[in-house]
């Protein structure tokens, strides 16, 4: 198979590689270089200023806010989403009425539930954000009018307009839109666990809860861990940008009073609103470090001996 092999390899790789290098790799490399300059993005001239942008980060209060909110997202969102999804997947797979001789049984209609739970995953995050923005509307939104209707008219929060609630409102939307995906993912993992394991546990007198914690969860560990990282990267990246930028108040989102600003949105605002492209890439580099650190911590904490089955 040597004949013309290298010509073929080069011929097949050149276009994808050129496109990928030009639009992905090259901008990444450039952004690290730009973070050491005073480039505004508006004019082609700029000078090299060393680590000035990085020292500026330390004094930038809004940057610290965005970092704090992004870290909150990266810790809270995977915890809530993965935890809740595991709970629902557990209910789907073991909550069934006990059938003859079955150790654990799935509920009736579990495939129906899975179809419904997956709905938000196929919808654009934009649609989800706009729907919830309207639901959160303090005057005539669905949530406050529901509260009125059930006799809780005295509780009419300002939701996205309240600096103390806005961030939570945003997180609720992200949880709502991602839980179903993980339910389906974990259910598939649970279904691939051999049934004799449950049989054996049952003979030893274990009940459903014990089997979940002693059999299902350990065997599902790899899936849970990758789901955890997946959710964290999503919470640090484009998804949180879209939800915050669309839903929250203020020009380009992040309000009220920067109470919902997250790192990717701050990068966007600095680069394309304030004309501080170099400083924006500096924030971007910080975001890259946070993302890598997050993945490293999860891998480290989640390290277990791999169970083959």
């Amino acid at each position, binding site marked *: 198979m040597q004949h013309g092999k290298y010509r073929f390899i080069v011929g097949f790789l050149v276009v994808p590689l050129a496109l*990928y290098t030009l*639009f992905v790799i090259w901008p990444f490399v450039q952004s690290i270089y730009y973070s050491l300059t005073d480039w505004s993005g508006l004019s082609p001239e700029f000078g090299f200023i060393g680590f000035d942008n990085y020292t500026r980060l330390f004094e930038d209060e809004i940057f610290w806010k965005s970092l704090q909110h992004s870290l909150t997202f990266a810790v809270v969102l995977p915890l809530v989403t993965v935890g809740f999804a595991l709970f629902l997947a557990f209910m789907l797979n073991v909550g069934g009425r006990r059938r003859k001789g079955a150790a654990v049984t799935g509920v009736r209609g579990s495939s129906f539930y899975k179809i419904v739970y997956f709905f938000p995953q196929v919808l654009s995050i934009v649609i989800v954000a706009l729907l919830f923005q309207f639901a959160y509307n303090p005057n005539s939104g669905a949530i406050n009018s529901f509260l009125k209707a059930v006799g809780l008219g005295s509780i009419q929060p300002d939701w996205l307009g309240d600096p103390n609630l806005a961030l939570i409102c945003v997180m609720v939307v992200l949880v709502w839109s991602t839980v179903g995906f993980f339910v389906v993912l974990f259910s598939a993992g649970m279904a691939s666990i051999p049934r004799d394991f449950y*049989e054996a546990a049952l003979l030893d007198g274990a009940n459903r809860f014990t089997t979940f914690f002693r059999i299902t969860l350990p065997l599902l560990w790899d899936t849970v861990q990758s789901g955890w990282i997946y959710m964290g990267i999503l919470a640090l990246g484009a998804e949180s*940008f879209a939800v915050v930028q669309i839903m929250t108040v203020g020009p380009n989102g992040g309000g009220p009073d920067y109470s919902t600003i997250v790192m990717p949105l701050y990068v966007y605002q600095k680069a394309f609103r304030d004309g501080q492209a170099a400083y924006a890439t500096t924030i971007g580099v910080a975001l890259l470090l946070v993302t890598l650190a997050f993945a490293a911590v999860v891998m480290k904490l989640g390290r277990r001996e791999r169970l083959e089955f």
Partner: protein
Amino acid sequence: MKTTDTPPTGDAQIPAPRAAEGPAVTKVAAPVKEKREGGVLNVFSHGVLIIWAIMVVMPLLWAVMTSFKTDRAIFTSPWSLPDALHFDNWSRAWTQAHMSEYFLNTIVVVGGSLVGTLLLGSMAAYVLARFEFPGNRFLYFLFIGGMSFPIILALVPLFYVMQNMALVNTLHGLILVYIAYSLPFTVFFLTAFFRTLPTSVAEAAFIDGASHTRTFFQVMLPMARPGLISVGIFNFLGQWNQYLLPTVLNTDPDNKVLSQGLVQLAVSQGYKGDWSGLFAGLVMAMLPVLAAYIVFQRQVVAGLTAGAVK
């Protein structure tokens, strides 16, 4: 990340219908005790599951319902059914609010980039999976490295790269960028897939005198179809729903794609007070995707969950 239980043939990731009913153990062990535990748990789990199902479906149904109401009714009684089906909301959104143009732009961009992604992605993946050459590993990791970096970091310089090439605010520029940013996952997924295909068929074709290129297009690509479908669905939804890239790189009002258009609609209809038109637009964007999902449910789930096992 998993070694044993998920071959990358999408289908395997969906539990078989039997498995969805829960692991049904054979009649060896028949527990007589704890009969009631099962009953209570069953009621509880159905309760929880139904509540969450309602919470998922409710906002969507509410949006559909609202899209048929008058603006006055939306504000005065958000939860009541519409007094009549106001289809004029829909026609207003379709024509005046430019929804038709947004749809067309999105179809052009996603169509072009999906074909490009699958073609270029499978070419690169095939070479990386089946040929030994110096630098193979390096290129592979260069490609998949792109999966874990925050896109926003590259976007600032990317904007100016594209501006210099006169690609900003053009649909073909957006297509090229979509392809470039879809390559990491596509190459990763398809490389694994091509490795699972038997080598003997390609060798036989080659011995029969087919060139490498011909072997790829006439023998390997048809064999890789299940993998192409999975990764194609994954990319289709990702590109159809893409918001970050067009927001930065495509700000020309005439070229807006659907996701941007909806945000634009929310702003402009908000000024006009035309909320019913906005909801009609939202539902219009929502229904085709939901309908396609329900029809191709198995493939969609397989395609999307494949993305998490990276």
